[in-house]
Structure formats: C-alpha cells, structure tokens
C-alpha cells in the first residue's frame, strides 16, 4: 500500500519529482507537497483504489500528514467497513 500511494503522489501530485525525496515519513502537508487541490486528488484516488469513503470529519492533518499516516488511516477505514459488512 505504501508504494502504491508513494508512486501516485510522486507521479501525479508532485510537480518536480526529482527535487523531492519522498519517504514514508516525509511530512506531506508541512513541506507543501500536498496543497488543497492535490489533497482532493489524493482522497479521490484512495477512495477509488481502496474502496473506502472519506468523511468530512476524517479530514484532519493526522490522517494525511505522511504516507505512513495515510496507510494507517486507509487500513482503519477498511477494517471499519469490513466490520459493518
């Protein structure tokens, strides 16, 4: 999951990928890799790729701060949605 998200961010959301080393703990918001619109693109990608639905109350920095945080968030969403099923 980390690599899928990392590749998407590098390819689709970073304008100059060669100038940024994207690690799993790179701060995405503080370093301005993600802005408002690229975050929307990322959320839509996560929803499509992992079959989750992101709610408004889940749009907190902790869930999108790093690739690791995004993976934790996606995994918890998937677990919650499986429990519901």
């Amino acid at each position, binding site marked *: 999951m980390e690599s899928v998200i990392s590749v998407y961010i590098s390819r689709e959301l970073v304008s100059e990928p060669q100038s940024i080393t994207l690690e799993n703990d790179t701060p995405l918001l503080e370093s301005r890799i993600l802005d*408002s619109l690229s975050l929307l693109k990322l959320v839509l990608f996560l929803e499509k790729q992992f079959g989750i639905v992101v709610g408004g109350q889940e749009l907190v920095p902790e869930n999108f701060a790093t690739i690791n945080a995004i993976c934790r968030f996606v995994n918890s969403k998937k677990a919650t949605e499986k429990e519901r099923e």
Partner: protein
Amino acid sequence: VNRNVLLHWKSDGGSSATFRPSSRLQAAVRRALLSIDNHTYRTVVVPMVAFLPAPLAYGVALVRSDLRYRLMRSSRRKIIYSFGLLFGDRLSQRECDRVARDNFRSMSCETIDAMRLLGSGKALLGLVEVRGLEHLRAALAGGKGAVLCSAHFGSPKSCFSIIGALGFPITIVARWRYHEKRRKRLLIKLHYRLRNDYPVNSHLHRPNIERHPGTWGSAVEAAMVLRRNELVGIMIDAEVRPGDPSKPMTFDFLNGKAMLVPGATEIAQLTGAPVMVMLLRRLADWRHQVLEISPPIHVEGDPVVAFKQCLALVEAAIQRYPAQWRPLPVSRGGVGGPLEVYGFERSDL
C-alpha cells in the same frame, strides 16, 4: 496607461509617488469623519431605511455615497487612477470620474441589499430578476451538485445568498473579513456579525469553507458538499494572499495579468460537477438587479482552459459595466495595493 487619467490624478492634488494630503491634521479629521459616517451608516442608517420602499432606501444610499465620493479624495483618486490602468485608453477622463462615482454608489447600495436579505430575503428578491435558473435545476438533476463561479461584481456579498433564499442549498468558499486577526476586537466582531451573519449567512446552507494559511482541506470540503448534490459558490477573482495554501497561476485579465486560483474548475472536473458563471448586476435605477446564470461551462479537458472561459465571461461583464466591479477596496492603503493583487507590478505605476 490612460494619459488623461494620469493627468487628472496628478492635477487633483496628489503627488506622483504617494497620495499625500495637504496636512496631517486635515487627514486625521477627514479619516475620523469618514469612520463615523461608515459605522453610523452601516449600524444605524441602513437598518432604519433598508426596509422602506426601495426608491427611498436606495435613494439614501446614493446620497450618502455621493457625499463620500466628494470627501474621500484620496480613495477617489486611487480608484480613478486604478480604472485608468485597468482599462487603458478605453475610458476618457470623464468616464473614469463617472465610473469611480458609480463604484462608490454600488458599494453603498450593496449594504442596503445585504440588509434586505434579513428574514426570508423577500425584500431583496422582489427587486432581482433571476435568469438561467433552469441551468441550475438541470445541473442538480444530474446528482453531482454544481459549482457556481462569481466575481466581486455588482453586489457580491448578496449574490450567493439570493440563490440560498430561492431555496437552493449553497455553501460558499470565502473568508469573511471579521474572521481575520485584525478584526478580533469584540465590538467590531459583533458589528460584522450583525451585518453579515444574520442577513447574508442565514441563507447559506453550511458555514463558509475558508481558505487561508493553515487550512489545507478546502477543496475536499467543497467536493463533499458537491457529493451531497448541493451548490458550491466561489469568487474566481479572489485575491491570493501571502501564505495562501493554494497554487495560483497567472492569467491575462483586463489590461494586465492576474494571479488567480483555477480551483473552481479543477474541483468541478475532479468531481464531475457542472460549472456555471453567475453575475449579479445592478440596473440603471440602482435598486433593481439582474442575476444571470450562464449555461454550464465545458470542463472535460484542461481545467485551466475552462477557468479561462469563466474568466472571459467575468471580464466581458466588467468591460461592459466597469463601475460594478469591486477590485479596489478603498480602505486599503498604498498606491497600487489593490492593483498588485491583480498582478500589476509597482513599475507599472
């Protein structure tokens, strides 16, 4: 730059480098009087006259604005000069004067508009002819919401609230001035709340989506509103402030370049929502207005191209009714302050 305007500006008492009044005392007295007028008009006069018959209510606004036009020499010169820059030689000196006076009038009338939205908003709705609602209904029938692009034109504070008062669920991407740090004083905050929250915000479906340094989820919030098949209103000529988390782009606009964020069309493209341009313009009698909603703009390809189409519609309206555009906040200090917002360099001045 329109030479006539430049000559007029210089001959009207201002130096070519700064707008310096003849004495500090005079300036201080004038500022105090204008401040008293501003607060009295907005908190006492407008609530008293707004619900009188429209010719009377707007008549008071016109008298007041003409008085301010005479008193606010520095702002008047700034506006005349700014319009000269924005429109080049298209406006003669006399036209620039008229446009500047009408700009003052438009601002005074806007305060009456906002107050007439109080309650059901019928006091204002009765004066507004709405064109193109069928586009809005068709868009919502598609189930993906719609993005309404507007500009600081005509009565910008009221335009989205009119759509709300007509029964459409609309949320706007905007930051009210009283939320800013410099408006933290309790009385001023209360004053702004009474003027904005009750009449204007009460017709908006959800709290504003605010875009400012420190926030990063505004586009996602807007997308979530669209998902609920509701409307999102965005001012596409909004200024980009330092530290704004969005990535602005440079666009040709009027006689220069403008730094703007094409977020409206990008959000629409990502969510599949249609985009329409909506402009509220005032008619010659100053009390009646026309709210015009365009057919959907094609956003399938490059969202920047679609944004340029939206901007072209706004630009056409500004070219036709220049006095109704509001890029020139008179309270902002410094020559060219508002113009820099629209990408003019100081060297242009």
